[in-house]
């Protein structure tokens, strides 16, 4: 389903020196995988997730989703993949704080073709209902707790029914109780048949994964 072939990523640091974030990374992710990517800070975990999420383009190598080479696609096609095939969950939630929960969950549907306004609202409500957040639909995001915000972010990630969920340290800002809740939700999403790729520092969460890969200095190794 997802295949990375010899992916390298170089960037210029503040002193204009070339830094290798990823070095010839190859990875194959199947349809029912729950992959955790671990590694020390600066090892290239987030860079890898951004390439998987079609936010950054690799300096070299090839990236295939469902057999299609993403590196050769136009911006429009890539945007369509981000919208329909990928759902993103971020450590700091990535929500618009002054908008309502419903508005935030609705964002991916704004850019999705053939979706009416009433259809969008119904889908958002269903997505929120799945996460037990339906009663908070009209609340502003800034009024919510950290755990609630992350559940809104998950509701937004799954609202357009993507096959791939990419989570960048989703429990990093949460207390242990909420950490547990969020991991259980991600586990449920995986059991529904979605692919979950999660970056984490927290070794206690590795038990949720079906596969664990480790990045060190931009090089990948499977554990």
């Amino acid at each position: 389903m997802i295949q990375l072939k010899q992916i390298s990523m170089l960037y210029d640091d503040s002193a204009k020196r070339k830094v290798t974030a990823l070095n010839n990374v190859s990875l194959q992710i199947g349809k029912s995988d729950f992959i955790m990517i671990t590694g020390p800070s600066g090892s290239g975990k987030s860079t890898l997730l951004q390439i998987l999420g079609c936010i950054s383009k690799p300096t070299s190598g090839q990236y295939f989703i469902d057999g299609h080479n993403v590196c050769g696609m136009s911006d429009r096609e890539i945007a369509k993949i981000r919208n329909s095939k990928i759902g993103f969950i971020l450590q700091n939630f990535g929500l618009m704080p002054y908008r309502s929960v419903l508005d935030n969950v609705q964002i991916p549907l704004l850019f999705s073709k053939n979706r009416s306004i009433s259809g969008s609202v119904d889908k958002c409500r269903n997505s929120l209902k799945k996460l037990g957040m339906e009663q908070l639909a009209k609340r502003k995001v800034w009024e919510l707790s950290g755990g609630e915000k992350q559940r809104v972010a998950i509701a937004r990630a799954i609202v357009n029914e993507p096959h791939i969920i990419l989570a960048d340290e989703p429990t990093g800002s949460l207390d242990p109780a909420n950490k547990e809740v969020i991991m259980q939700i991600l586990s449920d999403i995986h059991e529904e048949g979605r692919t979950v790729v999660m970056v984490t520092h927290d070794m206690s969460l590795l038990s949720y994964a079906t596969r664990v890969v480790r990045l060190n200095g931009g090089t990948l190794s499977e554990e």
Partner: protein
Amino acid sequence: MLKYIFFSLKSLKITLRSTVISFILILITMLMFNSLIVLGQDSTKTSSAFLNMEDVIFLSFSHPKYDPDDLCKSVPNIKAYHKISSNLTDIDTTMCASLYYDKYVLQHFNFDLKNGRMIKDSNEIIITSALGKKYKVGDTVSIMYYTEYQEQKFTEKTVCGVLSNDIVFYSSSFGSEITASEFRVNLDDPDRFIIGNNEGCGFITSDECFENPFETDRSIIFIEPERSDEKSISDLCTALQEFGCVYKGADLIKNAKNNETKNIKDYRTIMIALAILSSVTLFGHYIIDVYRRRNEFAIMYICGAENKNIYAIEIVKMIALVLTASIIGTSLAYLLIQKTQHMTLSPVGISISCGFMLVYILFSMLALYLVTKKEDISEVMKGE
């Protein structure tokens, strides 16, 4: 597209403080731009019927010993001179400085009939374009006037014509020299007209049904230059200089224009400064706002938006804001100006408003383009 519109309009409500600031700034800019255009028109173009009087000589004097008629008669080659007198009358509850003329003077005015015809009978009246907005040909208007014993009286006249002139003469064309003085009516002239003038209304009607106002010892003599010898006029002017004032029509028009534009120039400087200040603040405010919201654009981007989707959302939001503020600002400018200058809506003003809206939207889109192009989405997401 409908989804974008809802989302964009919601943005206006969510970022209420920013919306209100932008709205006020656009409003001020449009108000200033349109006021500038209207005031500009006023100082460069006027529809005063008085404009034709450039070559006419006006003599105003109040020497008790001399009768102006006798003085004029004593100078050879002065073949046509006419007297003007004044009184106050009210039309449409507006007090007008009303000057009495004979029919010869009347011919020198630049009257331009838009509807109807000239006066044929003493019960008829011609009104200026400003009054024509309220009355039409065939309507009856009421005029209040004072008799020589200061007794208040009313008379009714039927509108027989509407002029395309907005005003009869500039409010300050005679200034204190004439309108504030008292003039003697030429009682011997059986064919007198009265012209009422004020900002916002004006009229011409026959003097026949008015009772004679009281006589004064001050007169204005109006000399027709084309029927009099130039040297004789010059001699007469010199002879009368010590008894009163001699005005050339051209000077009166020039003074009038100067008087009108003197205050306008001060206003214009303030307006230009305000227009520039509000425009610059508006653009600055938008650039800061866009920079502040770059996380919002990054969120849209990771949720599958292309840059063109983000522009579309911003354009819808901006058009709604700019259009509303511009319409209110432009209307407000014309309403305020009309109160004092009775100007009409100008196509130039509307074009400038549309131009400003377009420039603002284009500049704002440029700012948005630069922010979204330069910003690395992944960096923005990390920095949250």
